[in-house]
């Protein structure tokens, strides 16, 4: 028997195990609820907001991607200096993590947008600089605060991950004559990332769940589109339910993508 057909039989067995009778009933109830929602609730607003919703979804995903990548790039040095850096670097990194993790993201966002944003215009050199057109908009503040938040939470994870890499490996690499930079690049960082990957998935889902906050500073993501529908049509549940489904889908895709990524990692560690 080929490996492929064995796989197929295995998958079939797993599917029949999963599809127990009570699950079929639950699925039927779920489908009935969805049909009821489609038939009895109001969806006539959908065509009007279709384009805006697509733009909103696109913006949400874009914000998520940018802030996660930037935040991770910040998190690596933040975690690293806390493990091995000098005191004048590790202490600020520690306090950065503590402060960001100790205050609500909504407050940080409003602090940056309203607080810093209201200070900037006082300085003529900022008003005249090339950055001013950007500083007048909302999205740089949204990107900045989400990036900082991700960097702090993930920096804490990376700190543990860097500390968890076995000392012997680093010493071996040094004994092979690798330079410090090469040890970091080839041994320390990859192993730390392998260790951090399962938490990375969770943090990224949390980051997705934090993105709707940017709607409170006038960035039009998918959440803002849903609130706009609610405010202009007075339809409450339908846009919110659809919004929940959209976030569910994005979360599902994220989880699957990270699972694929994790499967590619050699699982013998340490």
């Amino acid at each position, binding site marked *: 028997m080929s490996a492929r057909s064995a796989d197929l039989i295995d998958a079939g067995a797993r599917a029949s195990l999963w599809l127990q009778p009570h699950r079929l009933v*639950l699925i039927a109830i779920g489908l009935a609820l969805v049909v009821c929602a489609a038939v009895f609730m109001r969806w006539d607003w959908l065509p009007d907001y279709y384009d805006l919703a697509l733009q909103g979804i696109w913006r949400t995903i874009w914000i998520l991607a940018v802030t996660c990548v930037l935040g991770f790039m910040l998190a690596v040095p933040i975690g690293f200096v806390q493990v091995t850096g000098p005191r004048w670097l590790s202490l600020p990194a520690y306090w950065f993590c503590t*402060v960001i993790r100790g205050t609500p993201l909504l*407050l940080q966002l409003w602090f940056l947008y309203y607080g810093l944003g209201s200070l900037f215009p*006082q300085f003529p050199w900022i008003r005249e600089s090339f950055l001013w057109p950007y500083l007048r908009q909302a999205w740089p503040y949204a990107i900045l605060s989400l990036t900082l938040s991700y960097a702090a939470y993930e920096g804490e994870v990376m700190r543990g991950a860097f500390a968890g890499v076995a000392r012997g490996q680093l010493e071996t690499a040094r004994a092979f004559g690798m330079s410090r930079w090469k040890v970091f690049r080839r041994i320390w960082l990859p192993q730390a990332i392998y260790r951090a990957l399962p938490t990375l998935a969770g943090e990224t889902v949390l980051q997705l769940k934090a993105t709707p906050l940017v709607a409170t500073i006038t960035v039009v993501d998918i959440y803002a589109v849903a609130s706009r529908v609610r405010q202009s049509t007075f339809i409450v549940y339908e846009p919110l339910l659809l919004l929940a489904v959209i976030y569910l889908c994005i979360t599902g895709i994220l989880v699957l993508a990270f699972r694929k990524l994790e499967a590619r990692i050699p699982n013998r560690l340490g």
Partner: protein
Amino acid sequence: MRGSGAQNPKRGSAEHDGDRHIEALIHLAQASAFDLLALSPPGWGGNLLRGLMNSVLIAVGAFSIGILIGIGGAFGKLYGGPVTRDLLELYTTLVRAIPELVLILLLYFAGTDLINRLLEALGYQRIDINGLVAGICVLGIVQGAYSTEVIRGAILAIPQGQIEAARAYGMSPGLMLRRITLPAMLPFAIPGLANLWLIATKDTALLAIVGFNELTQETRTAASTTKAYFTFFLAAGALYLLLTLFSNVIIARVERWARRGMYMETH
């Protein structure tokens, strides 16, 4: 609900914007940060502290409801029938995948609507749901999903022999729960629960979106009235940070208490 023009320093025409900033500068020049944060009425410090009180109240309530749901949910997931288990799985998955903000709005609107419809069907008057109670319930349901997972993991971490020994002594399930399972799972659950408490204190800020007067909302009111955005958001941040640091101290104590008499494998 969200930042209307008056609260937003960066909207409107450039001219208007300039005016507002000059106005803001005058305000800033007139009152120092200490005057603004004074506890008695011309200052807004009292309002901030009241907001903090409300935040802590909501966090305590939500956390307690979350733990109650969590204990029930964990037992349902571990010992319940197949249908209970699937429904609980659905609950924890959904709550953990949908943003808190969306859940809060959905549960807030749907919850108050359902209760009012129920009351009308039973022939009573519609009631205005207290924002505090609604906030506590909504955040409690969100917390419940997370604490279900934490407590389930903690119960699974109890050495099996302890539960078997309790059964062998002929303890009834209720007695076993009270005397063995709950105390024995506590040391394993406390790090996760502590994390949830910190999340609860920060999630209370989300209730500002539905207009409840907790710390973030009070701060925004104070800031938009006095135009001293920087001072007030900084002050509120300091209050939240103090709450977190204070919680950390308490958590460390509770953890030491829960681990008393436990064999320490590491350190």
